[in-house]
């Protein structure tokens, strides 16, 4: 009764969950690009494109991806043989258990006429498959909790996934091990299949089972006489053997039974067989019902992602299909952290301790944003910084075992956050290179917005200081003077020859350089000499600096002009940066 009710309940939750999650694939959007379309338009567009692939030569590519990357998981193998072995053991072990054990009466029965779970090879295979999963889980536990792999983060979802698998498999082994030892189970079976035997014959059978089948019983005592065992064996062969392979074939369960045997009698009497049975099937049903909401959904979303990316052409794909795929991709991430192990910007993470700089850690907040959840200000700034502190080297995309096109995902999600989010000073760095290369994809009126926001946040407060009409206090406050001498102080060697401004290609580009740039390099050096650090920080010149080092190279006084401009940029950004570094204290999303 409990079994049936919980089975159907979990199946209903499972299917409703799948429909819900599948529905979000067509409703949500991860980023900025792509026209807004209704869910049904997106669904039919995806359907149309899928059918177009199936009835074209691309079907070969699709099947190839399915066999090599989904069934054989070539992408994980490229990364690490051990991890591939781990995942293959869990994946194949579980799939085979599902079909041969859980759905044995439906699937295996239909395929093999002689199927009985207690007959070989099935009896043996069940243990083998279970042990495969267990071995994989052990490797996963070691990898996640014992090897100190830098930047490999373990979330509560990862713990849940490992935990539910471990509970299912361990309860299974304990259950079958205890059943082997169980006198109650034996008596029930004897009654059902050999109820007409005499007491003496039954006792002989029991002795034989204690001797050879791992049964634990206090009703018969060792040592057994040879003729008793013979009699028991005869009864066994007549009534049991046709349907029961030797218990030792289920080698892992048999060994478990042997380990349990000192306590087996007491456990049997206390009803542990029933308890373990409940734990086993309930954990299976919880895993099933929760699957659509857990990272185990990747058993559906990852194959879809791998196959979609195998046939989708980045330049030709319809934007609505890219939008749909990107939402599936967010669900396809297994948080294996391969991307973060090789992320080129990893030292940016080490310097700033913002976990969202790591690609694997960006997925959760992007999912939350796609679901329309509002992040608090600290979170929004952290994810924006995290997604912008990226050198666009594409390594994450190359190594992702789930085949996610992370490169395109970042580009898309980044633009949305830049447009809608707060000012991000990183926009003023060479990290903007790729955004600039892609500028034609962004509407002309939206493109400059993030730059303007960043400029405002970083420099706006210093701009009024540049007013030529302003009277300058030549004895500036002590704090200002101190700041100026806190870094590169070679500006004090400047004798005002203006070489730096003469050779500067940026200055040379303008008819009216001072209007465009605020202060020219030599004027910045002069300002610093006067202690007017903040005035210098307001000059647009520092952000339009190419860092070509012409000024510094040509300075007859060895003033490190370019390096000084760098320091001014650091100081200008520091004013904005304060308070946004330790976003983790504000509470992470995971």
């Amino acid at each position: 009764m409990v079994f049936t009710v919980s089975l159907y309940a979990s199946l209903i939750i499972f299917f409703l969950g799948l429909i819900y999650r599948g529905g979000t694939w067509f409703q949500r959007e991860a980023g900025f690009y792509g026209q807004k379309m209704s869910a049904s338009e997106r669904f039919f567009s995806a359907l149309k494109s899928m059918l177009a692939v199936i009835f074209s030569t691309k079907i070969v590519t699709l099947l190839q991806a399915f066999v090599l990357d989904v069934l054989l998981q070539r992408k994980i193998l490229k990364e690490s043989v051990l991890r591939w072995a781990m995942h293959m053991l869990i994946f194949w072990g579980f799939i085979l258990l599902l079909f041969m054990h859980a759905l044995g009466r439906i699937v295996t029965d239909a395929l093999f006429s002689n199927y009985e779970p207690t007959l070989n090879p099935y009896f043996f295979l069940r243990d083998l498959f279970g042990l495969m999963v267990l071995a994989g889980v052990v490797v996963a536990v070691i990898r996640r909790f014992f090897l100190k792999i830098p930047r490999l983060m373990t979330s509560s979802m990862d713990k849940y996934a490992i935990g539910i698998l471990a509970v299912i498999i361990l309860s299974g082994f304990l259950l079958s091990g205890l059943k082997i030892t169980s006198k109650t189970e034996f008596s029930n079976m004897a009654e059902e299949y050999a109820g007409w035997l005499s007491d003496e014959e039954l006792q002989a059978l029991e002795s034989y089972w204690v001797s050879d089948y791992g049964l634990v019983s206090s009703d018969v005592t060792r040592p057994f006489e040879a003729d008793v065992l013979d009699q028991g064996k005869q009864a066994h062969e007549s009534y049991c053997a046709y349907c029961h392979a030797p218990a030792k074939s289920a080698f892992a369960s048999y060994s478990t039974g042997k380990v349990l045997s000192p306590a087996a009698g007491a456990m049997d009497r206390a009803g542990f067989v029933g308890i373990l049975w409940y734990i086993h099937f309930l954990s299976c049903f919880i895993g099933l019902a929760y699957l659509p909401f857990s990272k185990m959904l990747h058993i559906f979303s990852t194959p879809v992602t791998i196959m979609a990316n195998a046939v989708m052409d980045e330049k030709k794909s319809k934007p609505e299909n890219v939008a749909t795929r990107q939402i599936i991709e967010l669900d396809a991430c297994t948080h294996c952290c391969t991307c973060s192990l090789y992320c080129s910007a990893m030292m940016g993470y080490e310097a700033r301790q913002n976990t969202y700089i790591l690609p694997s850690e960006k997925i959760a907040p992007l999912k939350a944003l796609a679901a329309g959840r509002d992040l608090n200000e600290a979170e929004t700034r952290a994810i924006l910084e995290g997604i912008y502190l990226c050198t666009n080297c594409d390594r994450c995309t190359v190594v992702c075992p789930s085949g996610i096109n992370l490169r395109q995902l970042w580009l898309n999600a980044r633009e949305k956050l830049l447009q809608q989010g707060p000012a991000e000073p990183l926009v003023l760095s060479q990290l903007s290179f790729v955004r600039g290369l892609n500028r034609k994809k962004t509407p002309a009126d939206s493109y400059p917005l993030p730059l303007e926001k960043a400029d405002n946040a970083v420099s706006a407060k210093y701009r009024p200081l540049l007013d030529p009409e302003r009277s300058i206090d030549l004895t500036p406050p002590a704090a200002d003077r101190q700041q100026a001498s806190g870094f590169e102080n070679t500006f004090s060697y400047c004798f005002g020859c203006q070489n730096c401004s003469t050779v500067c290609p940026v200055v040379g580009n303008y008819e009216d350089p001072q209007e465009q740039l605020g202060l020219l390099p030599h004027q910045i050096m002069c300002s610093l000499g006067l202690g007017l650090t903040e005035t210098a920080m307001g000059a647009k010149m520092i952000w339009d600096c190419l860092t070509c080092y012409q000024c510094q190279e040509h300075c007859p006084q060895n003033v490190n002009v370019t390096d000084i401009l760098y320091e001014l940029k650091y100081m200008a950004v520091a004013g904005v940066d304060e308070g946004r570094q330790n976003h983790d204290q504000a509470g992470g999303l995971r």
Partner: protein
Amino acid sequence: MMRYSFFIGCQIPSRVPQYETAARAVLKKFGVELADIRQFNCCGYPMRNVDKKAFLLSSVKNLALSENQGLDMLVLCNCCFGALKNAEHIMAEKGPLQDEVLGKIREMGLDYQGKTRIRHYLSVLYHDTGIAAIKKQLHKTYKELNIAVQYGCHALRPSTVTQFDDPVAPSLFDELVAATGAKSVDWTNKLECCGAPLIGTNDALSADLFSRKREAAIKAEADFFCTSCPYCQIQFDTVQQMLVEDNAGQKPLPSILFPQLLGLSMNIDSQTLGLGANKLDISKIESYLSKDKE
């Protein structure tokens, strides 16, 4: 046999992969062995504008990785080269930031003492292989080909830090180009910035600087730009293509990467050199090749 750790940075694998394949093919012919260190990360250059610590940590981590394998580093990108060189220079001084960076590096089980020599690809060819040895490997030479070499700022300057060549009158790149039979033309903006550092932050200024360079190179009757840096190459190739699209009728001046130029005259096939991967068509370069050596 020379052996280096091979530092290709971020732009080359994602946007100029032909630079890597061409450079590998050429270096192989000269017996230069390259070790790939998978744990290399960004050189720190793109973060240098806004975060000194992230820049230094990135650079020093790479140097430490190479040092711990006892290898000097061969760098293809000028901006990576400059960043690594500047980081080395900064780390040579004492200070709280340096201590913090060293501490982090040691936490990672690495050590940094500044032993690794940072070498630019062109320097290795010029100083270690040598012009004479290069000429021996040539199967064909270019005839009547005018090349505008783009040195790139971050290799040349600050010269006290990069120690690449004479910052005012460099000749290394010109001599390497001349070795292939091509003529390295004298052009006015030769030593100036390509404009790439401002792509994405001030695109108009970046385009102005490039256009000026283009005009100067055309005036000097150059047939091609020749680059040794992915940033310069992207500016001269990818961005120039965008600019040409915007200005109908403008004739582009295509850009070839130095190992492509050299590789062709060494008889390395154009597939390996990735000529087709350039955005602007450079196939006509092969018409300048002639069998008879000088």
